[in-house]
């Protein structure tokens, strides 16, 4: 989870991220950030997030994102 | 080509909706003239009028020309009547003519009804908007030959009784085929007609326009008394071809009109029926440098113009304008009193030979005998030539020069005096607009009438330098206006009466 938060702050240093900050509602992440995040996750966790998983529910908050990574990791 | 109507039918196929005739009020396209003429033809045939004279008593409007062609479609020949002529003369002509039908329209309704004429009277609209019957028209057309008469034109006969000259298809076709190339008429020609429709002069405008699909503007008569407005009319309608009588030309060029306004579109200017003073010609040539000028000569009896001369050099003021040479397929013979060819350079009487000759005079064989004679040069076969009664000679360049009427030559003090020469000399002097010379009384005295600001004494001194003593007129009389016949020629009999009154 810490690695995930580090990745997020790397994208937007001026924002302090917590596991449940509303990433999309407050328009913190745009499509650019999501794509860079996906490639970072691929890098870090070796988990490939398929296109159909790129839906608002999975990126609503840090925890949701983390849950997605774990689900794809084992699956 | 054996029928003048073929000109119209060919043009109707090519440009049916091109403007053919207009008088500033009503315009008629070829298609309308064609339809209305055939309707008139059908109406005439239906009323049993075929092969007869059809008197057309109408003002100068496009419809009049349609009436002419309508008469021809009906297998008749049209006789245009001048509604302005004195009532007595009109009735005499109609009586003498005894036409098969009388065509009239709203503008000549009163006159037509008053005429003592018992034949069929037909209103223009009744005929022109009636039903066209193709079959009768086709039958009549099949029977028509090129020697059938198409018109009778009454000339102002010098002897008082009106002479009706009968023209036929052949004469007109030959005339048009020679005239157009010589004067350069084509599809672009826009004619400004001045002469009345009851003279043959208008033939050289109507039929060429019909042949090439040109356009004829019947210029309203009153415009000829306002030269500036007349030239504006010419420019406004882009008229590029004029075939006027000399007096009309003089009337326009004389009062300095060209300083105020110039005709801008003229391509061809032809003048006829009389001698045009060189001074007036120069004024016209300066005003319309781009135009070609022609002096035309031709009596009615030869269907119109038979000689033409294109002015191509500067002429001296007193030098008469030559009448040049005859059209192809027409020959001019200069013969002396005995009928032998005149010596070169010597004056001779003009005899005209060719298909152009008209059929002769209407119902007056005796007049014909004097004019249409056997060719004096040969008598091995019958050959009609027309003795014009005009005198001419060939100048050093071989061009024919018109001298005047034969009967206008007088002998005075043993010398032949050509009154025309005296008039030409006077005309060339400054301050003289037009001149007419007659001799009268016993012993013969030469009286010169002239119009213009010149003083008699100054005129006499001028003449002295130009004329031999025996040709100097005894008396010089200024006139307000020179008397003219309806078709613009000098009214010599009136001058003689004035001279006799003394």
């Amino acid at each position: 989870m810490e690695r995930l938060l580090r990745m997020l702050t790397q994208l937007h240093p001026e924002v302090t991220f917590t596991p449940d900050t509303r990433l999309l509602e407050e328009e913190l992440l745009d499509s650019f950030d999501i794509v860079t995040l996906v490639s970072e996750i691929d890098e870090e966790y070796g988990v490939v997030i398929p296109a159909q998983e790129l839906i608002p529910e999975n990126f609503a908050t840090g925890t949701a994102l983390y849950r997605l990574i774990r689900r794809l990791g084992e699956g | 080509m054996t029928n003048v109507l073929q000109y119209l039918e060919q043009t109707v196929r090519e440009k049916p909706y091109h403007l053919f005739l207009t008088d500033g009020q009503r315009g008629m396209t070829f298609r309308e003239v064609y339809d209305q003429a055939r309707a008139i033809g059908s109406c005439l045939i239906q009323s049993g009028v075929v092969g007869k004279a059809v008197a057309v008593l109408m003002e100068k409007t496009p419809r009049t020309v349609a009436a002419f062609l309508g008469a021809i479609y009906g297998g008749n020949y049209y006789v245009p009547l001048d509604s302005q002529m004195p009532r007595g003369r009109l009735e005499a002509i109609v009586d003498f003519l005894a036409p098969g039908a009388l065509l009239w329209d709203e503008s000549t309704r009163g006159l037509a009804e008053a005429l003592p004429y018992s034949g069929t009277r037909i209103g223009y609209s009744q005929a022109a908007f009636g039903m066209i019957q193709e079959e009768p028209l086709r039958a009549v057309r099949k029977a028509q030959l090129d020697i059938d008469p198409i018109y009778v034109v009454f000339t102002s006969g010098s002897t008082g009784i009106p002479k009706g000259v009968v023209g036929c298809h052949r004469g007109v076709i030959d005339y048009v085929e020679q005239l157009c190339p010589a004067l350069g008429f084509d599809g672009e020609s826009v004619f400004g007609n001045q002469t009345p429709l009851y003279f043959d002069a208008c033939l050289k405008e109507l039929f060429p326009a019909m042949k090439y699909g040109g356009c004829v503007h019947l210029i309203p008569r009153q415009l000829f008394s306002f030269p500036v407005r007349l030239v504006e009319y010419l420019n406004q309608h882009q008229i590029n071809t004029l075939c006027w009588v000399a007096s009309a030309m003089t009337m326009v060029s004389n009062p300095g009109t060209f300083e105020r306004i110039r005709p801008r579109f003229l391509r061809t200017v032809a003048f006829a029926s009389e001698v045009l003073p060189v001074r007036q010609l120069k004024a016209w040539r300066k005003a319309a440098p781009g135009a070609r000028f022609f002096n035309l000569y031709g009596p009615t009896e030869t269907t119109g113009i038979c000689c033409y001369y294109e002015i191509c050099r500067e002429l001296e003021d007193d030098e008469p304008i030559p009448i040049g040479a005859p059209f192809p397929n027409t020959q001019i013979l200069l013969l002396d009193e005995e009928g032998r060819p005149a010596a070169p350079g010597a004056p001779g009487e003009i005899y005209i030979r060719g298909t152009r000759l008209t059929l002769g005079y209407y119902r007056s064989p005796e007049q014909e005998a004097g004019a249409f004679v056997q060719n004096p040069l040969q008598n091995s076969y019958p050959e009609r030539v027309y003795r014009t009664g005009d005198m001419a000679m060939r100048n050093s360049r071989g061009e024919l020069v018109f001298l005047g009427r034969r009967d206008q030559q007088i002998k005075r003090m043993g010398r032949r005096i050509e009154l025309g020469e005296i008039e030409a000399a006077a005309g060339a002097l400054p301050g003289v607009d037009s001149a007419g010379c007659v001799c009268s009384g016993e012993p013969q005295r030469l009286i010169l009438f002239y119009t213009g600001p010149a003083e008699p004494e100054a005129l006499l001194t001028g003449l002295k330098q130009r004329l031999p003593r025996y040709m100097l007129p005894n008396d010089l009389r200024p006139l307000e206006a020179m008397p003219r016949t309806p078709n613009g020629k000098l009214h010599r009999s009136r001058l003689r009466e004035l001279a006799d009154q003394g």
Partner: protein
Amino acid sequence: MKKWCAFLCGGLILGLLQGLLAPKYTGLTQEGGLIREYYQNAGGNDVIFIGDCEVYENFSPITLWQEYGITSYIRGSPQQTIWQSYYLMEETFRYETPKVMVFNVLSMKYDSPESTGSQSRREAYNRMTLDGMRWSSCKWKAVNASLTREERRWGGALTYLFPLLRYHDRWSELTAEDVRYLFHFQPVSHCGYLMRTGVEPMTEALISAPMTDAELGQTSWEYLDKMVRLCREHGTQLVLVKSPGLYPVWWWEWDRQVTEYAREQELLYVNMLPAQEEIGIDWMTDTYDGGLHLNVSGAEKASAWFGKILQEQCGLPDHRREETVSALWEARCRAYEAAKAEGR
């Protein structure tokens, strides 16, 4: 409830706007106001003229009354096409059954809405004819017949149902006339005849436009057949007339076809063009627009001549002796003479 009364007054305001914006035809273009005037004068007419400007400019019902006691009315409008004429005829039979129906055949030269000219011209003339008609099935059919296919698809017929859709952009051209004539209109004709007292001889050479087609169009013949059937149903005699106007040109091929048709259908066809001398029309004094239409003197001459034919060929009674009828027509004659004197 509140909603319904809101809708109601909203509708009222829109209706008022529609009336305000509709053209009133009081100024120059009076021809637009001809058709609407028939409805007050419906009934008791022996002869009804139907056709385009050659009818309402070249015939005068007052002269027909004064000379022959014929009661007539003209249902003419500018460039009235044959389909509009047919449906006007159909509508007229709902108000009265005349003894004679006179139709001017010139409009047969237009075979389709497109052929009558540019879209703006067609729209202007259609409006002058159709807007004046009262709403009925005839008007609906006339509207649809007068529109081109695209105009119908676009919904042109609705702009006749709700004129506001057509005249909405007149808001910037409103004048006092629009307000004054909001609820009533000012009659401009004398039994459908639009009087012109001016005299303007032919001054500019009128040249005929090319003939569109030697054969009159199929649509025109269909509507003419319909007219014949309609008049036969009502026992009315259909008289075809070509009024003596010279332009536009009535080509002789067309005249031949109409004459043949009239012979087959045993109809009376009167072409007044050949009778110009008989009628005495002088195009220098009898026209108000340089030779296109007749003025009042020309119209009276034409009516006098045509009246005689109507009387002889159609056996029309002379009503001048009947009290009730002549009272009405006397008033009309007075108004007619006044207008003529005034030189309107």
